[in-house]
């Protein structure tokens, strides 16, 4: 059962998590695993209705900084065991990620990325174009210059992950409130004291901001300024066909990504440099653009000509919560006890969420320093220690 409570919220809680997507639910679960008792999750729509439910479900370890690789590696391990741990099938299929490029200039970076990943024990290989045909037989390699492939990367079904975590939360006594919005916050002398919602006020010493594109707004209520902005991305799904494509294919040249889901549909998207960054998530237009459909179709049929006869069924849009270096913001802030944020995943929240939730839960409950959380804290933007990853796609 996944009972999602409706009705008035409790008057007190040991922790309030704002946001019912991957980050909020994974964090709530992990806090419960750490022994915290009276946990409430607040979601303004339905669970997974935000970025989590709109994403392509990709999970990869092919990053270019050691930190990102380690985080992603831990995430993949979590996904490998997730169905068993949650007792809920999340459909994590490790078909691999094939990252391709049409530009010679990218090859040195790709090679060194592979070396770095290998040093971290991630089994990525560098491939010549013709090797790609063994993995994706009908790929058009005529313009390819090189590729990398990691067989342990994969995809999972976002809603299954969300429901799995929600069920596990319920078993641990976490209460999830849907159709409940935060209307205000309370703090006294640098300590968090509560959260106001449209179903009542909750007194709590601990608030975790997992509100995705609305994280900046919520942080602002606490007087915390986040540098996050939102980006609009579209994604589409094709008709259902018998399995023919194993990996997720990503082109770092034109920013297309596509894979075949467990239901047999091609799921994919392409970045659009013409999309402006949004200052306010309320200006997010969820309506579909023909421009996306055409650009995606051209890129897809250019790489995979057999897709010419495949029909697009549906396209939709979602938001990335983007930070200046495209890496998440974790941890707390000085001067405000009891407030933590887990946001800014810039399009990679689904793959990193479970792992950051676990690390943050341990950090919050034990207080033991965590090197990854420390390096991804908010103050890095002031200190100027920005380390962007080279492979940000979609």
């Amino acid at each position: 059962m996944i009972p999602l409570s409706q009705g008035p919220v409790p008057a007190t809680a040991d922790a309030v998590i704002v946001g019912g997507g991957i980050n909020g639910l994974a964090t709530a679960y992990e806090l419960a695993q750490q022994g915290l008792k009276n946990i409430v999750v607040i979601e303004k729509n339905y669970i997974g209705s935000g970025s989590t439910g709109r994403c392509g479900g990709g999970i990869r370890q092919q990053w270019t900084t050691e930190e990102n690789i380690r985080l992603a590696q831990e995430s993949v391990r979590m996904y490998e065991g997730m169905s068993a741990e949650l007792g809920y099938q999340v459909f994590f299929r490790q078909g691999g990620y094939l990252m391709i490029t049409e530009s010679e200039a990218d090859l040195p970076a790709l090679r060194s990325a592979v070396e770095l990943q290998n040093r971290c024990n991630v089994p990525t290989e560098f491939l010549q174009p013709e090797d790609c045909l063994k993995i994706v037989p009908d790929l058009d390699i005529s313009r390819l210059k090189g590729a990398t492939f990691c067989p342990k990367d994969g995809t999972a079904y976002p809603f299954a992950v969300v429901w799995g975590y929600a069920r596990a939360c319920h078993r641990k006594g976490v209460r999830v409130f849907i159709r409940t919005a935060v209307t205000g916050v309370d703090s006294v002398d640098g300590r968090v004291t509560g959260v106001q919602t449209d179903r009542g006020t909750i007194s709590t010493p601990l608030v975790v901001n997992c509100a995705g594109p609305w994280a900046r707004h919520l942080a602002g209520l606490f007087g915390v300024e986040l540098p996050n902005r939102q980006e609009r991305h579209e994604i589409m799904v094709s008709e259902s066909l018998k399995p023919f494509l194993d990996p997720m294919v990503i082109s770092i040249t034109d920013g297309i990504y596509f894979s075949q889901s467990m239901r047999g549909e091609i799921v994919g998207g392409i970045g659009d440099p013409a999309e402006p960054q949004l200052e306010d998530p309320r200006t997010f237009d969820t309506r579909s653009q023909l421009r996306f459909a055409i650009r995606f179709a051209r890129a897809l049929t250019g790489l995979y000509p057999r897709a010419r006869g495949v029909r697009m069924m549906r396209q939709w849009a979602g938001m990335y919560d983007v930070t200046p270096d495209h890496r998440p913001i974790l941890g707390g802030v000085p001067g405000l006890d009891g407030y933590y944020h887990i946001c800014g995943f810039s399009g990679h929240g689904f793959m990193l969420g479970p792992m950051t939730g676990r690390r943050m839960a341990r950090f919050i409950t034990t207080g033991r320093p965590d090197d990854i959380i420390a390096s991804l804290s908010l103050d890095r933007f002031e200190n100027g220690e920005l380390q962007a990853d080279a492979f940000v796609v979609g």
Partner: protein
Amino acid sequence: MASDKVTIRFESKALTCRADTTVAVALWENGVRHLSHSPKYGRPRGVTCARSQCTDCLMRVDGVPNIRVCEMPVRPDMEIQRQDAGAFYGPPMQKTLTTASSLFPVGFYYKWFTKPASLSRLFLRFIRPLTGVGRLPAAESTLAALPAPGGIAPQQASDLGQVDTVVVGGGPSGLQAALAASGQVLILDEHDQPGGQRRAALAAVAAHDGWLDRFPVLAAAQRRCEDLVHSFAAERANDFQGGTRAVAGFAPGGLLLRRGQELQTVRCSHLVWAAGGLDTLGLFPGNDAAGIIGPRALYRLVMRDGLDLQDRHVLVTGGGLDFWLSAALLASRGARVTVVVTESGWHSEVSAAVDLKWQLNTGLALASMRDRGQQGIEATYVPGRAGPGSLHAHLNLEADLAVVCGRGKPAYDIPYQLGADLSLQPELGGYLPRGASTGDPAGVLPGNVSVLTVGEAAGLLPADQVANSREETAS
């Protein structure tokens, strides 16, 4: 009507059919009523919507998967196949799957085989090949060679530019809106002539001497339709573009259209959505049987595709204008019609039906739909309150086709894609765009495109017609 004959091939059998019909009708007339099998229970499905809206007629045509044969014209030597292993889903397997379905509760695949991790992986490897409907088309797909809507050759869309008002739907409501509009108007309809999806059927019934007079509801509808068509022809004949369907609405306020084999784009300041209703699925046990269709599908099959129903037994049940129009149309085509009358108030129509020696039935039992040589599917109609949109009686009759005239669903998809505001308004018959009853726009989109929905899409005609149109509100 005489026409050339062609030969097509269905799973290695050569079939003869008229040259000017669709694959679905050609198969039906040759006794092939089961075109596909449903994904989970393997239940046989046949032609249902006849407008490329549903999933029931997906077949493989000339090697191309997932073709809706209900709107695929026949061509000589066409190869048609079922996509699933039809033999695998023969009656014994179907019975097994349906009976065993209680062992597979909803969402079972999320809850079973999750531990240990190795079993979970094995489970995924096992079920992955079971998903998917058609197979990936061949590299040089013949899709482009098939006529629309199944396939259209890649082409650039021609741009119709910016128009003051675009009216989608050339039926009575759309014509009314076009006549009332000022400025430039472009009115679009999938039929070649204005008048809407019932005009041809009404004309067919009118051709029978004296029939319209016996059925006042049909007479009123036909008169209104023809009056509007004549007014429209006098004032705005050149503003009509037939053979056109709206394919997609992309923000802001742009429509992608398909006219025959061509794609077109158009932009407007005001969009009037008068596209009428779609047949919905009546909710009763056995409602998925091959042969259960709605009235709009009947009009398309008979008037557009020439389906030959001479001496076939057809049931008509439900209520509203479509109920009597379907029955009359069928009778005019020489079908043996059984009309199940349960709604009180249709007195004159009932007497007329009796006079015309239509078979009337108000009995109780089970109905079975029988395909030639295949086991029948039993359908039980659940009695409900008399009134439009609910099914009233148990029937025990063998029939080739059952026309169930229930609540229509407004074809609101594209206004919704454009951002129009929709809500459920049951007092007006169901699921409607906001503002429909008051004539307010259902939305104002960026670029100041206003979207107004009228007619069956709103459950009613423009206000001055409502008083005369009991049958419209009942539809």
